[in-house]
């Protein structure tokens, strides 16, 4: 093991903003800040429950714009996918399928669910963290794809 690019301070600051946002959404309108759940409600729309979802999603994009405008961290110019278009399609499908079957993603289970001490979210978080580690090990070490 060799530790690289470790950025604990910006990671903590970013994490704190995410936690703050989730708390603010629950406090202001009683909603869980689970991204897959919010997006899922747009993919299969429920009448009368769309406005806040669209605004939150637009906010997510604007948050990225704000970061660039403020220039408070490393730039985004170097950011690129680490896999081919075909793998991106497969990964996107799996993330969508998994988050829908498992009723949540990294934010909904990992940040909001665990903060509520939900045993269901703990099981979900352990499942996807565990498999993600295994997947990277298989792809990068057993199959020898470089990273």
């Amino acid at each position: 093991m060799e530790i690289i690019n470790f950025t604990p301070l910006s990671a903590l600051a970013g994490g704190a903003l995410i936690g703050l946002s989730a708390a603010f959404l629950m406090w202001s309108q009683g909603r869980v800040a689970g991204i897959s759940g919010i997006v899922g409600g747009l993919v299969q729309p429920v009448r009368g429950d769309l406005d806040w979802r669209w605004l939150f999603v637009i906010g997510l994009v604007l948050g990225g714009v704000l970061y660039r405008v403020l220039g408070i961290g490393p730039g985004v110019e170097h950011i690129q996918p680490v896999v081919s278009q075909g793998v991106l399609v497969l990964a996107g499908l799996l993330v969508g399928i998994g988050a829908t079957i498992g009723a949540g993603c990294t934010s909904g289970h990992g940040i909001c669910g665990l903060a509520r001490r939900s045993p269901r979210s703990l099981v979900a978080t352990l499942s996807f963290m565990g498999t993600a580690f295994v997947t990277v090990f298989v792809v990068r070490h057993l199959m020898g794809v470089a990273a």
Partner: protein
Amino acid sequence: MIQTLRLAAALAAGMVFGLGLSVAQMIDPAKIINFLNVFGQWDPSLAFVMGGGLVVNAILTPLIFKRAHPLWADYFRLPAKTEIDRRIVLGGIIFGIGWGLAGYCPGPMITSLSFADSSIVTIIVAYLIGTWLTKQALARIDRRTTQLARA
């Protein structure tokens, strides 16, 4: 007036969330893959993102739930299901494979639209299709289960 405030709050929450993902560099899939790559060149930063987010939210959440209802809504909407079933594990496993393959979970995908190139559109479209198809399939399975239970 309250409706406007509620919607402004949703937009603000989204912006702070997206800003947080950017500051934490979670929008960089290479950084996510490096975190998951414990046996290679390891970047432990993501643990601090989850830790920071969790601690802040876990401190505030009990305070929020002391209120009778949210500031601009009638009640708190929490997931109805509490039992641990097969779906939560199976879903987690499938999600984890997808996340580990490309380094993108749903939040960073959407925030990355702020510097859109074609690759981000590719994975978002695939993500939306996967979500839609699964919702259709689950609804069909649940209908059949209900019918069987009635019969």
